[in-house]
């Protein structure tokens, strides 16, 4: 009897628990596992635990998500124009996209590197690479704005970048395509690859105060493809590791021709040694041409400077900078664990994962355990450097991140899974499927001395049936895993912009308490055409150029009536946002403008160039809803024929007693 009652009670209790729909948010993720939704749920008004800086791939931009919610906060325009924010359209931002090829409005952003101090994320900057027209960018994390873009000479596709040393002494930039050096005649037969094509790796120094970048030196290497890279850390600080493929030096049908050898290389670079050679004057000055673009927070203006020289160290002549570690089958990822001892190579076509030992590398170099040379660079004996192999881990290994608890997580593109394995005993301890075809992985701090092993994000190349269909082009995605337990647990799917490649994440408090800017102080605005207050607003004609010094405040422009513009004029609207409160941008749009809008932050001055194409009346208005009277924030520009006698006049708020006679 008692047992029966107890059973009844239990049954009722169970049913009750199951029948409380309001207790836990239910969505598709519930099917994955019971508490998945709760683990990724961040209630309205609550903040996420991590900022996730995600590459936008062929969008050319950097996106900022929150973890664990997967909410998108901002798309930071970096290498591609962004009409929404006026990036690349306003006169001040155009120089940021200047290159030795002229203005380049698009690129392909693959990887992110957050700046570090002693192997830990310091919250100052996020670096990014341009994969097409080789460049490096630095995003300032106080403003979430691109502060600097540096072009890279002697380079043909900056893929092996922007990985940094553990104090961000250097950000590296290894070329994917080897090409004839910039100071040689590039007009040579393509099949003269072996003779004429060279690889270059730039070591770009970073000023620890200002963040300003400078190419300290370049390493000239054999003509191969550099893929990815990681710095040594802790005990291996002073070294850098680059994965190389196409050591076959093929120049056509690489799919087949660059997959011939059983082993390619991970190139180990002793950059401290390179510094010594540089100091000793062993570098060769080379004439090149590259653009260096810097943003000034006080003039709110970018400046592009064309530079003409770079110092190159030839690693086939300077013998003890580089060593080749044989690595099976076209290595892609090349990742160093938090202790700095283990280097994981991920051969795209290999059925095993080799783990190399830094200690053994040092011993092998000391004892010259070489297996010949590759174009003048010593090749180390595989077994002498190898710590061990993870056997049969999966198909198509790409990238590895670390949790700091002795485990590594490797993505497998072909078998579409993440495999967790023990670094010490090289055994697989867990595997989970991804949907589908995972590329990069991200654990917050997963490339540092101190990872934060709570979440793992997988960035997938294909989504197929995961979301509502949107025609032939489908979104790409990220998948979030809880890795706090022994087993990885998928807790969220979220779509991403562009194609997500590498991403990094940092604790929210580190970034949001880094002294983030809320407004630009109007007193510190040094824009040459600022109007500090309506009394300074004016319209000035300089030949056929007309400069409008305009102010914006809730909710009017000054001036908002302009007459006397003539056909053939170039009009520059220099709009100063007089607001000094957080989150009150104003926008500016004018009919027929062939570029974009302006989006002006509080205290900022930004310029839109406008060339009227016809005589008539042109409305202009504020594009960013600023107040209840936002819809009143508008004005007119009157355009008269060339040579018209209509005087140049401007005003705001002057309402004539009666309508003037029509002229």
């Amino acid at each position, binding site marked *: 009897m008692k047992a029966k009652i107890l059973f009844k*009670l239990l049954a*009722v*209790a169970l049913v009750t*628990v199951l029948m409380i729909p309001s207790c836990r948010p239910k969505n598709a993720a519930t099917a994955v596992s019971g508490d998945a939704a709760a683990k990724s749920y961040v209630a309205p008004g609550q903040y996420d*635990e991590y900022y996730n800086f995600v590459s936008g791939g062929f969008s050319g931009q950097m996106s900022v998500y929150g973890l664990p919610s997967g909410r998108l906060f901002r798309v930071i325009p970096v290498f591609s124009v962004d009409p929404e924010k006026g990036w690349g359209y306003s006169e001040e931002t155009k120089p940021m996209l200047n290159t030795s090829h002229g203005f380049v409005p698009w690129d392909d952003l693959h990887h992110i590197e957050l700046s570090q101090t002693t192997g830990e994320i310091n919250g100052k900057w996020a670096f990014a690479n341009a994969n097409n027209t080789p460049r490096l960018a630095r995003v300032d994390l106080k403003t979430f704005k691109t502060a600097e873009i540096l072009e890279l000479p002697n380079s043909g596709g900056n893929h092996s970048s922007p990985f940094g040393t553990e104090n961000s002494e250097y950000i590296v930039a290894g070329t994917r395509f080897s090409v004839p050096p910039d100071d040689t005649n590039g007009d040579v037969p393509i099949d003269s690859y072996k003779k004429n094509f060279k690889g270059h790796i730039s070591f770009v120094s970073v000023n620890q105060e200002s963040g300003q970048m400078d190419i300290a030196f370049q390493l000239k290497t054999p003509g191969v493809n550099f893929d990815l890279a990681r710095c040594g850390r802790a005990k291996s600080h002073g070294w850098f590791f680059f994965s190389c493929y196409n050591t076959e030096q093929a120049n056509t049908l690489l799919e087949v021709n660059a997959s011939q050898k059983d082993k390619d290389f991970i190139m180990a670079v002793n950059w401290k040694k390179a510094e010594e050679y540089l100091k000793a004057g062993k570098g060769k000055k080379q004439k090149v041409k590259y653009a260096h673009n810097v943003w000034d927070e006080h003039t709110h203006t970018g400046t592009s400077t064309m530079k003409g020289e770079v110092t190159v160290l030839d690693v086939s002549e300077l013998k003890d900078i580089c060593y080749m570690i044989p690595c099976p089958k076209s290595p892609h990822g090349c990742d160093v664990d938090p202790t700095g001892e283990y280097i994981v190579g991920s051969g795209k076509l290999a059925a095993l994962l080799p783990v190399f030992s830094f200690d053994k590398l040092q011993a092998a170099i000391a004892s010259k355990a070489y297996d010949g040379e590759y174009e003048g660079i010593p090749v180390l004996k595989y077994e002498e450097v190898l710590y061990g192999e993870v056997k049969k881990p999966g198909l198509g290994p790409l990238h590895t991140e670390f949790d700091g608890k002795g485990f590594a997580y490797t993505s497998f593109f072909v078998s579409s899974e993440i495999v967790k394995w023990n670094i010490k005993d090289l055994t697989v301890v867990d595997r989970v499927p991804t949907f589908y075809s995972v590329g990069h992985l991200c654990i917050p701090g997963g490339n540092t001395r101190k990872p934060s092993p709570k979440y793992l994000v997988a960035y997938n190349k294909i989504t197929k049936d995961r979301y509502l269909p949107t025609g032939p082009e489908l979104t790409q995605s990220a998948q979030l895993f809880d890795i706090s337990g022994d087993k990885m647990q998928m807790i969220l799917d979220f779509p991403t912009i562009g194609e997500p490649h590498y991403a990094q994440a940092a604790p929210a408090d580190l970034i949001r308490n880094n002294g983030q800017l809320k407004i630009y*102080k109007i007193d510190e605005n040094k824009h040459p055409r600022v109007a500090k*207050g309506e009394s300074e607003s004016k319209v000035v004609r300089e030949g056929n150029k007309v400069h409008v010094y305009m102010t914006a*405040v809730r*909710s009017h422009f000054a001036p908002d009536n302009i007459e006397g513009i003539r056909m053939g004029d170039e009009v520059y609207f220099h709009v100063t946002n007089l607001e000094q*409160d957080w989150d009150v941008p104003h926008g500016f749009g004018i009919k027929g403008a062939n570029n974009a809008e302006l989006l002006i932050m509080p205290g900022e001055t930004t310029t839109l160039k406008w060339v009227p194409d016809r005589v008539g009346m042109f409305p202009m208005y504020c594009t960013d809803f600023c107040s209840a009277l936002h819809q009143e924030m508008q004005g007119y520009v009157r355009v008269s024929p060339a040579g018209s006698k209509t005087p140049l006049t401007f005003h705001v708020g002057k309402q004539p007693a009666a309508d003037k006679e029509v002229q």
Partner: protein
Amino acid sequence: MRNIKIILVFVTITFYIACGGNNKKPASESSSADGTPTEKPADVNSYDPKRGEGKFNEQNVVLGATLNTAYAEVGEKAAGVKCTSCHKMTNERLVGPGWKGVTERRTPHWIMNFITNPDPMIDKDPELQAQLELCLVRMPNQSLADEEARNILEFMRKNDGVK
């Protein structure tokens, strides 16, 4: 009957336990939002309409018997950058009300509080709420430094004829 009672108690407890888990703060506890001031319920009872809300009071805002012309001069410049796009010096309304007579209508520390801390005051002050119905634009926080606010106050006094 007794069984039903037990079951009811049990169900209640179970319900409590099951839902208790939901009361847990979400994972982002360590970095939860501060909550913007505008979302806080206006506590009308503690609001002093003579003083406003902010760091200024009768003790720390002391006016001279005559105008401090140096203050007023700097204040006029600051107002030109941050205020006069919306406020006229007459009693005519532009975006916000004209400044004529403001120093006679309001205590000095109320003015200082309002121009440095507008948002909470607009939420609580009945007269400001009435004004908002008229102007429809919330006076923005223009990030005035204390000194800047004091100078602007002196310029307002000058505008009101203090010599």
